[in-house]
């Protein structure tokens, strides 16, 4: 493993971890889903570096693509699709109102 790879791994690790923390901390559900899809994306890149192309493909297709799609569709049906985040005040700490459905 070359030095440059090591740096990349480090960056990816940082990205993945901070995205994971983001998922829990951001108030907006859409942002949370977005952050949640960054995690598998970063992981997929990591997997490539770990010499696991099959896993990387699957993680990208299933984890990043499909799962985000599912979550996004669900968000819409749950009525949590609030881009601006004015009404939605739900995260780890605050919970009460979860915003009204947009449609």
């Amino acid at each position: 493993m070359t030095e440059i790879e090591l740096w990349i791994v480090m960056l990816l690790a940082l990205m993945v971890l901070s995205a994971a923390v983001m998922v829990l901390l951001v108030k907006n559900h859409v942002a949370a889903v977005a952050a949640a899809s960054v995690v598998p994306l970063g992981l997929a890149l990591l997997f490539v570096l770990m010499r696991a192309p099959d896993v990387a493909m699957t993680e990208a297709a299933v984890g990043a693509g499909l799962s985000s799609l599912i979550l996004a569709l669900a968000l819409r049906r749950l009525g949590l699709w609030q881009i601006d985040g004015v009404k939605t005040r739900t995260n780890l700490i605050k919970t009460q109102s979860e915003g009204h459905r947009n449609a």
Partner: protein
Amino acid sequence: MRNLTGLLFAGGLGFMLLAIASGLDFGAPPMLVGGAIQAAAPQETGATNIVTSVVLGYRGIDTLGELSILFAAAASAGLVLGRRHTTAGTLTEGGFVLKHGGAMLFPLLLTIGFYIIFHGHLTPGGGFQGGVILAAAFFLPLLARPGARLHHGMLSVIEGFAGSSFILIGLAALSEGEAFLQPMLVQDALGQLVSAGTLPLLYLAVGLKVGAELAGLLSHLAQTESEV
């Protein structure tokens, strides 16, 4: 207070596990089974992609279980969400790009999907990845034109036949006097499309099943009901 305990808890857990994991010999796995499989896989399964030979050969029953899980998840989701095909209230009509792009992408995605599935034993990729792409291919028009419905009947037929053909291929080996799911028709032509005998067929089954199930699942999730 609550968050503090939570963070302490998470940090402590992570640290503890890290302390444990640092005892592991990173980068030099024992390779007991892995090594043996690497040595034997090309001859036994005829696949150059050893992951594929593990997925479909050595751990074929895992894959069967996984398919079943996906099937169970789809069926459960279907049970939960019900069958009402009332529709399409609020999903906004896709724009021009989405509409026509979707139409153009459809054959492309289909081709890529099947390509990935069929070359799963030679190159990275295989049934799951290809299946997801197939699902995307079918789901894309749905995004573009919310009014369109997937043909659920057809999907479930594909799904059922794909799944059962996976098992049938396995049972065929059994009826030949071999073990269940034993690879058959392995050719001595490593690197060729036909080298792996029944493996690509299995992957095809996997791909179709995954594709059909995911497409069904997605369309279930996508349809909005008037009562919501």
